[in-house]
């Protein structure tokens, strides 16, 4: 069973592995036994799933949600309609075409095995794939190891590698918010020459340069095609663009992880307007632009959007919500059987709530991850139960999520 114990064991031996493989991840040679792409988006801070996907058709919804409730579709401050019972937050409007094209599915009332309410621990657990926080390696890194992938198969769109991609395999990273790339400066040309000759660091520096060059080459073209950045597009939009830039390439990575924080809406959450609405607009625009940006690779792409837990069904004294349990997840892609809201809806009546306050989770988040790893990236059942998600034999895959 691969746990943090193994990670700590591996870090000692990593240097040896590195020496053998001549250094660091090389973006120019991806290796995964599949052409399929996977993008994992982690929303840090506990997204209010009931706001992102309002259950307006639930008879307790309006009373429970009070001033944060959306009206049924058709009026002012109303949710967009998904299926007559569930709606979509109006800021996620850019995703409606994908839903209608059956390439976007929602999984509602989903949670990891975690049942406390600490962001820190919950995120750790979400990323480490076990049933307790305190892990030091991520399930996605473990999966890549099981799949015999090399480091350039995955890229973290961030300054640092998130836990889910940490582990035995060293992966690439790129930050669209990184320092301005002065490719043509005299200084940088000199540094490139210096590093090209360095036995230890040439690989890493070289891949850093290459990532920057791809970024410089790709972004302006995208802007032209999309007619410039849409209003409301922000950090997630930029990160999604960066991910697509890498994953659309035949010779690039196959897996990308994006992260965004700012979902911790304890006060002034708002409905169609406000902090949450702005964040969701950024998310919606970023995801909606993916099919075009991924190009022909979109058919082979699956995107999963998760958060570490949900929020209270009732609003609190500051017109916001507190930490909860069940939330919503999104799964989208060319091969996703979308146009549906999956999961078993527990209801919002007082005695249906978890600990009398939270949306009761009815789907284990690992089901989504397992399904994608198994059906889309071809991980074996055995490795899923042992190395990647220890003690998860009883966690079912979602049989009809992917085509």
């Amino acid at each position, binding site marked *: 069973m691969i746990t*943090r114990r193994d990670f*700590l064991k591996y870090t*000692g031996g990593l240097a040896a592995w590195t020496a053998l493989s001549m250094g660091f991840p090389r973006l120019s040679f991806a290796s995964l036994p599949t052409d399929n792409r996977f993008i994992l988006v982690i929303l840090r801070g506990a997204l209010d799933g009931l706001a992102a996907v309002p259950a307006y058709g639930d008879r307790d919804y309006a009373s429970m949600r009070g001033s944060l409730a959306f009206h049924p579709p058709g009026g002012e401050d109303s949710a967009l309609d998904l299926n007559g019972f569930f709606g979509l937050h109006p800021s996620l409007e850019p995703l409606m075409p994908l839903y209608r094209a059956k390439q976007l599915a929602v999984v509602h009332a989903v949670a990891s095995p975690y049942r406390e309410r600490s962001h820190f621990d919950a995120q750790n657990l979400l990323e480490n794939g076990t049933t307790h926080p305190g892990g030091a390696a991520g399930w996605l890194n473990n999966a890549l190891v099981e799949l015999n992938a090399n480091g350039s198969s995955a890229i973290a769109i961030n300054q640092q590698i998130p*836990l889910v991609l940490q582990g035995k395999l*060293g992966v690439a990273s790129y930050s669209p918010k990184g320092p301005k790339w002065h490719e043509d400066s005299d200084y940088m040309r000199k540094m490139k020459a210096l590093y090209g000759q360095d036995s230890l*660091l040439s690989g890493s520096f070289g891949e850093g340069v290459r990532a920057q060059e791809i970024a410089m080459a790709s972004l302006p073209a995208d802007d032209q095609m999309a007619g410039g950045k849409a209003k409301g597009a922000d950090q997630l939009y930029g990160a999604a663009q960066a991910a697509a830039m890498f994953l659309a390439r035949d010779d690039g990575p196959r897996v990308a992880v994006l992260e965004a924080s700012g979902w911790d809406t304890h006060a002034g959450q708002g409905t169609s307007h406000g902090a949450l609405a702005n964040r969701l607009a950024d998310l919606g625009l970023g995801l909606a632009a993916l099919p075009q940006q991924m190009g022909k690779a979109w058919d082979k792409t699956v995107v999963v959007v998760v958060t570490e837990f949900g929020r209270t069904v009732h609003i609190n004294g500051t017109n916001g919500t507190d930490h909860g349990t069940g939330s919503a997840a999104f799964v989208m892609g060319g091969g996703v059987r979308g146009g549906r809201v999956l999961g078993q809806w527990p209801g919002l009546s007082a005695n249906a709530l978890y600990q009398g306050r939270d949306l009761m989770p009815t789907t284990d988040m690992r089901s989504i991850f397992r399904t994608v790893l198994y059906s889309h990236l071809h991980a074996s059942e055995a490795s899923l139960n042992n190395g990647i998600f220890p003690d998860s034999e009883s966690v079912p895959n979602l049989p009809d999520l992917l085509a």
Partner: protein
Amino acid sequence: MIDESIYVAGTRFGLGLKPEEAARIGGSPQNWLMQQIRSPQTSTAFVTLPSSARNMQYLLKTRKEIKQQDAGAGDKKDMQKMLRQDLKGAFIDELRAKVALAMTTDTPFYERLVDFWSNHFTVSIKKGQVAGLAGSYEREAIRPHVTGKFADMLLAVAHHPAMLVYLDNAQSIGPDSIAGERRGKGLNENLAREIMELHTLGVDGGYSQTDVTTFAKVITGWSVAPLDSDNAGGFEFAQRRHEPGEQRILGRSYPQAGEEQGIAVLRDLARHPATAHHIATKLARHFIADSPPGDAVAKLEQVFLDTGGDLPALYDTLTGIPQAWDVRANTKIKSGYDLVISAARASGCNDDRFVDYALKSLKFLGAVPFEVNSPAGMPDIAQDIAGPEAMIQRVEWAQMAAIKFEPTQKASNIVAFTIGPIISTATRNALLGAHNDREATAILFGSPEFQRR
């Protein structure tokens, strides 16, 4: 050009040489290192900084006030935000003092060891309350024991509110304790697990999940003293939360009552052979190579066991290991923190304004002390500190650092006491071809050689 052994003493064991420091090292680099252990330098700024108990009192008091306030929740949010900012301010004050010392100290080997142990026993400011405690924790629980005994450091760490809060032990309740029976609430295993896995025995230490749970029971009651107590904000042993009864861990019985039970377990963990091996491995990894040589580890391990974890004896052995002095065979890469401090030292920085820029640099490079994602702390191997994005950041940063650190010497002089002994032809030529001294310094700070330790 300095001798290679002076380079190693100053750069690998130290924090990077300052101008003129090489002359002070003289003919015996190893003596220079051990002399620092006998007489470590401290900072005058430390006496002006509040203790963690003071900061904890402030935190508890403010939280109580916020709770009791009749104010609207919006105002409460504001008060909480102000509290967070206060704690962050306290952390920055501590960081400034630490970084100022690192930049100027004449006992850099000692400072590096402080960093090593702080990282080994790490706490993270990513957990809210810890921001107000992390800096004082280093001063109170780590520094006093760096030249003492491992067991004493472990005990100080396990008693410190920063650690008790960070790893949730302050709220851990024994199921059969007075408080536990009343509330039916429970045990938190976080600290117990980390002490065994990360601080002492290590991953292959041979303990079981049962040992972890039992140890967690043993340290129930180890918490933070509330406002109305004598030792407010400090350590308190809360009997009513303590799991009563004798416990067995790793085949040994612990019949002691109260706090003594935990102390006994910690002492045994501190002298366990697996701990000796774990600590020896980490020291060898930090000072010799990412993949530490087995014979070096064995040597350190033996000294640890023979001396009961006497740290100066360990350092004496460490500084005598030949592989540590062979930088061509065993290369280490500077952490982001090392990079910033070594550039500042090489520039002769000794003023507050350089501290400001150093802090900005640490943030830019993702290298702020205690700003870590897990109790495992900052990574110590090249794979994790010299990734693609990080390398670009370092090279970009070097340009600004060459300006902002206002080096007191020309690049060619700095080269002589920094990367001189290991400089490549390519780097030497690049320096010679620089348009001006500023560019030369940038090339120096960004060079592959300057990334090495």
